[in-house]
C-alpha cells in the first residue's frame, strides 16, 4: 500500500494515531528511521497548530492526513476545514535571543521547513492543504 489516509478530530491525543501510522508506513516501505522521525516531527508541528487554532475549542473539526510513498520521496498532505491560514507566511522565530527571552512561537514552522525538502500551501475547495515532501536517501 503506497498511499494511506487517516482522519482524526481536533484533539491533541489523536496526533499519536498519526505518529503510529507513520511508523507502520515507514516500516512497510523500509524508510530509514531518521526520515520517519523527521516526518513525525513535522507532522506534530503542523497538526498541533491546526488543533490549537483552526477550529473553535468547542467545535469538532476533522483533519485528514494522507501519506504517499514514491521510490525517492514521501509526500504528506494535511487538510483541515478551518479558516484560510497559510502557515508558511507566519513570521519565523528569533533564534538569536538568549534563553530567558526566547519566544517559542514560530518554532514549529521553522522545524517543518528545516526537516522537509519541500513545503507548499494551497487553499482548495474551502480547505487548507499543506503538502510536505521528504526526499529519501537512495536505497
Amino acid at each position: 500500500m503506497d498511499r494511506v489516509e487517516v482522519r482524526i478530530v481536533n484533539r491533541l491525543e489523536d496526533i499519536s494515531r498519526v505518529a503510529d501510522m507513520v511508523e507502520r508506513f515507514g516500516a512497510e516501505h523500509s524508510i530509514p528511521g531518521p526520515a520517519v522521525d523527521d516526518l513525525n516531527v513535522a507532522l506534530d508541528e503542523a497538526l498541533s497548530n491546526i488543533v490549537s487554532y483552526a477550529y473553535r475549542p468547542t467545535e469538532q473539526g476533522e483533519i485528514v492526513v494522507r501519506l504517499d510513498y514514491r521510490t525517492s520521496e514521501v509526500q504528506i498532505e494535511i487538510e483541515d476545514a478551518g479558516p484560510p491560514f497559510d502557515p508558511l507566511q507566519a513570521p519565523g522565530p528569533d533564534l538569536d535571543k538568549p534563553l530567558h527571552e526566547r519566544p517559542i512561537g514560530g518554532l514549529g514552522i521553522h522545524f517543518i521547513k528545516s526537516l522537509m525538502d519541500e513545503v507548499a500551501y494551497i487553499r482548495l475547495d474551502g480547505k487548507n492543504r499543506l503538502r510536505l515532501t521528504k526526499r529519501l536517501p537512495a536505497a
Partner: protein
Amino acid sequence: MELIENQSDGVIIVEPRGRIDSVGSKTFGDRLTELIRSGSHHMLIDLQQILYISSAGFRCLLIARKLVDEANGKLVLCGMSSEVKRLFEIGAFTDLFTICTNRDEGVSKAK
C-alpha cells in the same frame, strides 16, 4: 511517552522514553515542573531513549530551565543521539543548555 526517575548524588535523573511531541510533552512538562517546584533543583535529563522532540518538548525544557535558574539550581542534558542533536541545532538550542555525553559526566555537572 514514559518517564523513569532516579536519584544519584543529590541529582534527580529524569529519563523520558518515546516521543516528546505535543502529546507526550504534557506529561513530561508537568512532571518536570512538579519536581522542580517540590525542591529538585539539580536535574539531569537523559534523552537516550527518546525517538524525537518537537517544539512542544523544547517549550518544556525552556520552562524547566527557567525554573531551575530561578532556584539557583542546575539543569543538564545528556544521552542525545545524532538525530536528536540535529533537532537541537535546528532550533538553536545547543548553546542554551549544558549538554553532556553520558550520565556520569551529567551528574557531576548537575551537582
